[in-house]
């Protein structure tokens, strides 16, 4: 069965610091992987997606993610976090979502 695990419920980083949000998945075939961001009271916005090809995917707002089949991971990264990045981040395999990671940004 498909499943998505985001092991970190909360992460706090300082503004300007680098960020990595972890995502592990379980899927029998080639996964279709997504990262979404949800700001408070808002809907979901797609940051990036991976279906095939280059395993390093570039997204919006300076985010990137790397698909590692051997580790069943699709971690989201950003080299320098801005205060406006504070939000909830969801990893998804198809329509199956992880439980989310809440990012807090310290001034």
């Amino acid at each position, binding site marked *: 069965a498909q499943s998505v695990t985001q092991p970190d419920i909360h992460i706090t980083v300082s503004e300007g610091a680098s960020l990595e949000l972890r995502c592990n998945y379980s899927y029998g075939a080639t996964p279709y992987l997504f990262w979404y961001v949800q700001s408070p009271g808002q809907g*979901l916005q*797609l940051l990036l997606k991976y279906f095939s090809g280059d395993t390093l995917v570039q997204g919006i707002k300076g985010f990137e993610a790397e698909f590692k089949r051997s580790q069943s991971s699709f971690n989201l990264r950003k080299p320098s976090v801005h205060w406006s990045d504070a939000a909830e981040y969801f990893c998804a395999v198809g329509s199956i*979502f992880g439980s989310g990671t809440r990012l807090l940004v310290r001034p």
Partner: protein
Amino acid sequence: EPEVTQTPSHQVTQMGQEVILRCVPISNHLYFYWYRQILGQKVEFLVSFYNNEISEKSEIFDDQFSVERPDGSNFTLKIRSTKLEDSAMYFCASSEGIRTDTQYFGPGTRLTVL
């Protein structure tokens, strides 16, 4: 830029009442979805819809739920007899294709069951 819209933004209802949540997907999209998010919890897939029929549904989507595309633009989710545990944010999404295509999400409808 085209977007998915949902109405109402907030719906309050009494337990046992029927509610209909409405969505207008992006006009050239063919696949439609409903998700729910209970406060503080993860987003859960409910159902996908294509060519006027359900293509996939989760365990959550039981007989109390139904979906319909009554005309060329609206996509609705009906809950026949609401329960307290139906209180959640309900998101509609649409995509041009399935699986590989990006799903565009609406802003959500907050359903509160009293």
